């Protein structure tokens, strides 16, 4: 079935079998292997991508269901050699060990970062409650998220002040 998607700003058209999961489509058809696949039944969150700007699990979506929609994967975060602010914060605060859960964590946090929302630690834990990490014990992930979100919020407030 003909499926046209925009991924990280680029258009792709492929003929896909209806049963192909979006996660497999991204990895095997488009070669975007940054999206990781853990449980393949919606529990672990490692396959999280943005669909029209909102986080969804790519393993609980059929590739054909993404026809004419806009996706963002972890490959869309860094530009050239510059890491994204979220990636910088995860590096600075040791927010990853093996890195398997990291793309999902980043994509889950990205819309919050873009909205420059400042969250408490409890709210951060709630926001990433659908993402499992087997390594870090979550503490450094919460610290990474707090650092990135605070920086985004500071920047937005500074910008608003400068304009006002």
């Amino acid at each position, binding site marked *: *079935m003909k499926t046209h998607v925009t991924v990280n700003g680029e258009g792709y058209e492929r003929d896909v*079998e*209806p*049963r192909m*999961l979006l996660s*497999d489509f991204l990895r095997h058809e488009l070669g975007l292997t940054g999206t990781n696949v853990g449980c*393949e*039944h*919606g529990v672990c*969150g490692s396959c*999280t991508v943005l*669909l029209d700007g*909102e*986080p*969804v*699990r790519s*393993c*609980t*979506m*059929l590739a*054909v*269901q993404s*026809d004419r929609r806009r996706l963002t994967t972890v490959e869309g975060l860094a530009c050239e050699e510059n890491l994204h602010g979220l990636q910088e914060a995860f590096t600075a605060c040791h927010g990853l060990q093996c890195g398997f859960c990291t793309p999902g964590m980043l994509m*889950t946090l990205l819309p919050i970062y873009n909205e420059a929302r400042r969250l408490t630690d409890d709210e951060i834990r*709630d*926001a990433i*409650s*659908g*993402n499992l990490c087997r390594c870090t014990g979550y503490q450094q992930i919460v610290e990474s998220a707090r650092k990135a979100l605070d920086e985004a919020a500071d920047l937005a407030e500074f910008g608003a002040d400068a304009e006002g």
Partner: protein
Amino acid sequence: MKPPPFDYVVATSLDQAIDLVSSDEDAKFIAGGQSLIPLLSLRFARPTLLVDISRLSVLRGVRSVADALNIGASTRHADIERLPVVRECAPLLSAAAGWVAHAQIRNRGTFGGAVAHSDSAAEFPAALLAMGATIVTRSSSGERRIPSTQFFGAHFQTALQHGELVVAVEVPTADRFSRWGFSEFARRKGDYAIGGAAVSARLNEDGECTSVRAGLIAAGPGPTSAEGLEETLVGHLVDESAVDAAVAQCERSLSPESNVHGSKEYRRAVVAESLRRALHQAFDLGGTQDERRSA
């Protein structure tokens, strides 16, 4: 884990969707896919044909009709949680939505899908039982309006016939006499509940309870209505001892099954405590937060 092969059609009209599924006993509707796709991947479901109803605009939208709110089947969990009209007119549903799965799943999963799926541990069926909702369906033989108490059965069974579609759900609009409460316990926020309760009640001008209903979560083989609340609470200014008596009576009728989350005794206690907390919230009594029952 990969789904078995199937055909896939994006429905362009309600009638076409109904015709396609009705004429093939192994065909299924797919909405948000958040229950169905995991079942396909685990190969617990092997449909021949999936008919995607998610692009049908007639199933979208929330609107006020007389003294009810009509919620289209395609309304996503995230919309139920956030839409101002739902928060204002059906606050119990918005509160329950925050407990349905994780944010990524709430962005895809649909209200109609959760109602049709009818998991005993799901939040929306319990909330609909509490609110006395009506499920509006369509099939090749026409429209039906099914009271929630006649809709949900045991073990994922519902009143739906093969090829019958949930079109919308109507819930009574909250007014100044309406009260609600919601409480749930799960290991991790967003996981299916170990136990929970949704309460909807009405008071009169004097603050006496004129009606009260509760839907229980993970309390039995299907979405469950709490028994006996009306006899104990209606006609009274509800206080803590009345709540305790009502909960104790209801608890005796519960029969959750033992599973990996706990023995049936433990799960019964969790449901009863959730009901107590939800009733406290609804009747604005003290001690709704983190208070443990001493018994």
